[in-house]
């Protein structure tokens, strides 16, 4: 089972954190900090795996991938395969890349709820739900389309145009 999905930037700020078992806010912060301190002490060109029993309890492993300014992190237990989880991160990143065409940290920050929608399509209640990025994108698009349709109020923020004029 997957225990958590996290995206942290290289300064240790969480950009997205999803825990599939309930954790109180303080515990979440502690885990995020713990994960980051382990990650940033890893040298380049080493394996992407970590055994992280000290933070998440016995038999927990962590797989991470470092893209530009972001760490993508998956925490899971022995019932998943490390290499497969590494590819799941790949799926996630590919999907985001297609969603935002050339994804970068800012996209993730500013599209907070869309990010969650994407992650929810890939991991569901701690289990891998979908691994085809095309399918995920289809589902997310469908959601946004229906949301737009069911939405009587305009959601294009006025503020963007306002900001542009600034």
């Amino acid at each position, binding site marked *: 089972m997957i225990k958590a999905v996290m995206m942290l930037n290289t300064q240790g700020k*969480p950009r997205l954190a999803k825990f599939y078992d309930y954790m109180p806010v303080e515990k979440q912060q502690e885990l995020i900090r713990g994960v980051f301190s382990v990650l940033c002490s890893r040298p380049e060109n*080493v*394996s*992407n795996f970590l055994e992280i029993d000290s933070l998440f309890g016995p038999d927990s492993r962590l797989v991470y991938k470092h893209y530009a300014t972001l760490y993508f992190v998956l925490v899971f237990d022995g019932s998943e395969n490390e290499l*497969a989880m590494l590819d799941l991160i790949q799926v996630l990143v590919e999907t985001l890349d297609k969603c935002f065409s050339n994804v970068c940290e800012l996209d993730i920050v500013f599209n907070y709820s869309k990010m969650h929608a994407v992650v929810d399509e890939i991991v569901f209640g*701690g289990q891998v739900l*979908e691994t085809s990025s095309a399918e995920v994108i289809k589902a997310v698009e469908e959601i*946004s389309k229906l*949301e737009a349709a069911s939405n009587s109020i305009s959601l294009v923020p006025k503020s963007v145009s306002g900001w542009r004029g600034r």
Partner: protein
Amino acid sequence: MEQLKTIGRELAMGSQGGFGQSKEFLDLVKSIGEARSKAEEDRIVLSEIDILKRRLLEPDIPKRKMKEYIIRLVYIEMLGHDASFGYIHAVKMTHDDNLLLKRTGYLAVTLFLNEDHDLIILIVNTIQKDLRSDNFLVVCAALNAICRLINEETIPAVLPQVVELLNHQKEAVRKKAIMALHRFHRKSPSSVSHLISNFRKRLCDNDPGVMGATLCPLFDLISEDVSSYKDLVSSFVSILKQVTERRLPKSYDYHQMPAPFIQIKLLKIMALLGSGDKNASEIMSMVLGDLFRKCDSSTNIGNAILYECIRCISCILPNPKLLEAAADAISKFLKSDSHNLKYMGIDGLGRLIKISPDIAEQHQLAVIDCLEDPDDTLKRKTFELLYKMTKSSNVEVIVDRMIDYMISINDNHYKTEIASRCVELAEQFAPSNQWFIQIMNKVFEHAGDLVNIKVAHNLMRLIAEGFGEDDDDADSKLRLSAVESYLQLISEPKLPSLFLQVISWVLGEYGTADGKYSASYISGKLCDVADAYSSDETVKGYAVSALMKIYAFEIASGRKVDVLPECQSLIEELLASHSTDLQQRAYELQALLALDARAVESILPLDASCEDIEVDKDLSFLNGYIQQAIESGAQPYISERERSGMFETTDYHPQDHHEVPSHALRFEAYELPKPSGPPQASNELVPVPEPSYYSESHQPVSTSLVSERESSEIKLRLDGVKQKWGRPSYQSTTAASSTTQQAANGTPTHSDAGVGSSSSKPRSSYEPKKPEIDPEKQRLAASLFGGSSSRTDKKSSSGGHKPAKETVNKPAAVPKENQTPVQPPPDLLDLGEPTATTVTAMDPFKELEGLMDSSSQDGGSSDVMGLYSDAAPVTTTTSVDSLLSELSDSSKGNPHTYQSQTSKGPNTKEALEKDALVRQMGVNPTSQNPTLFKDLLG
């Protein structure tokens, strides 16, 4: 420039629609992103919290605004601040009809609340409604929320709807419903135990994605109870075969691999089912061999499958060819440059080494390279491997390495683990007691406070008891060496407390025993310890007791005792100590010093720590006194347990009884249906297979026949498929595969030949490739792996025996497996055999594919059984045909029973009740007044 980019991004975002946010939020995110320090970030967030608190109190907030506030709350909480003041608004948002708002509400609620939160009760009703929605996105959102928000008590409230959704026409919904059910099973297995057959049923879903999702719960179920799923082995194998032969639609490919995640799950399940089961292992071996040949080891995911195959092989009873293939795959992993693959290789090696111990020898240099790798993860994995392959011939090298590594790391968690492993290995394989004590000293010195206290006690006992043989000379040598090593160590600064306790005890007991060290020397050292660690009372206590023993031995042997001045002052200090324990020890010491030799000897005899002390627990010597007291009119003693027992029956219970109802008032509505509602309903829902499973668990012997028949009914489609492939085709391909494998390997005899002279041979085969191998490394390799050459011989010969033994064990399993086909007439397995030869011309998978396509075209008939009844004519047996149509009828009938259940069953009543309760409490889902909620939740 940076800013321009940002603006560009935001413009782009505006066009995406649906997910846009206002400038305020963007500003917030931006300013947090630019914050220089944690303090600055906190300040920004706190002011944001202030703003939100004020805003949320405003009346008539437009929904769009509200949605954004919620997102901001989520964001704040992700940064580690408390957003609980806004939870109620998120809950309210889930009630909204607008999909966007509803989804936002669910998202926030799943992130905010845990399943036991008080607000959950307000959401359950909404979830129930949404699960019945026509819009599948709403249903999906609700299912998503269920996974996080439903606890044991609320499961019955949503269970019927979730079960109903298992037959939803959208495969995305079916998939999620299965996973939700899986989640329920994890949370409270008893609440869904009667629905487990649904997982089996969904395994035959005509959407491969749904089938894949079913594997997750089945994996859990099988790992809990392997034996009742043995009948599915051939189904899983045939699914895996179909997948690897690319029978799935192209859209399931990932990096040119067909549905790799499904393959991995299947392999994991097969590993569970095949462990210790010769029959199952044989069924699997063919497809595993195929996988080894087919897997593309150039991609990450291909290697993931290869690794999973290795894992599977290490669990089942593999044939030699599979083992060889696994060993080859491992050596490929280990030779790779990627650290990830090396890690997997080491892990695989650690698993395979249990089956064939000589396999590690070919890879000794690779293992040593990994041991010296800068990558910590790899290093730890390698230590795990070494731990698994430790034996008495290499224990010294391995433990030395482990200790060096233990000293070098700071991570306390892992330090503890590796220290306990060192101790375990040392206790198990120690070549000499001397060495053992040295190792223990090192472990205590560097990880003393992390070691289990039992280890210290074991060490003390070992020193006291010696070898256990009647070799007093060796014992006293051992003790002397321990004392000497401790006297050397004792002056080191900052020793761990536990280690000092051991040292003090040993010095007290044996410090002067040999006559080499004088009593005053030892007692001086002990006083130093007590002085240097004056804040540690336990150590002080040990030190004082040790002093007491030393003086006692001196007195007993008739020598004159002069108490050192520092010792005297220590005693005086302790006489006035705050700790009663220390005080008592000091008084005892003082008293002892005043006694004569004979008395002292009987109090503390020399080297008597192992003698048993008899304790009269019943205090029988007081009997006379008690008798006297009772005779003179005293009350007899009543034991404490009896006294408290009386309390419980008289006082505690009624009080308890009164309290519960008043406190749990709110939950009553949900608890009501539990005994009567869902379990019954579902009994009716799944008429055919379910009752038999139920009974099977209760009386496995009598009903096993029936249940086996019935379980085969569920998996029937797949089994029929497998049978059509028939035995001949299996055999012919096995032969082919074996030859190709041998050819591919080039030197297939290598590992066999290497057994005899293993220590030298594999190394020489490596040398040409790596001309300059560090001689030190080679030495290390020889010491790690070399000693095993003689042992491998033994092992390999015992390996020869092993299969024989297994076959002896097997008959117990075989008849059971064989029984299935010979059983009751309507068993489908029976006809599989005859048709196997006649239908071989037709490709069964093609048929299935065709069926999948056709069913997706007409869209309506997603019914599996219906699907099968279409396929049935192929098998051309009337009795089966009728059975199938019967089956499909009953399963077609199912949806109706579901509906009727939900419409007139207890659920609507329950919903009404709940609704009434909610209204009664002033909580109207659509009300705009947040203060009402506040009153309620206070």
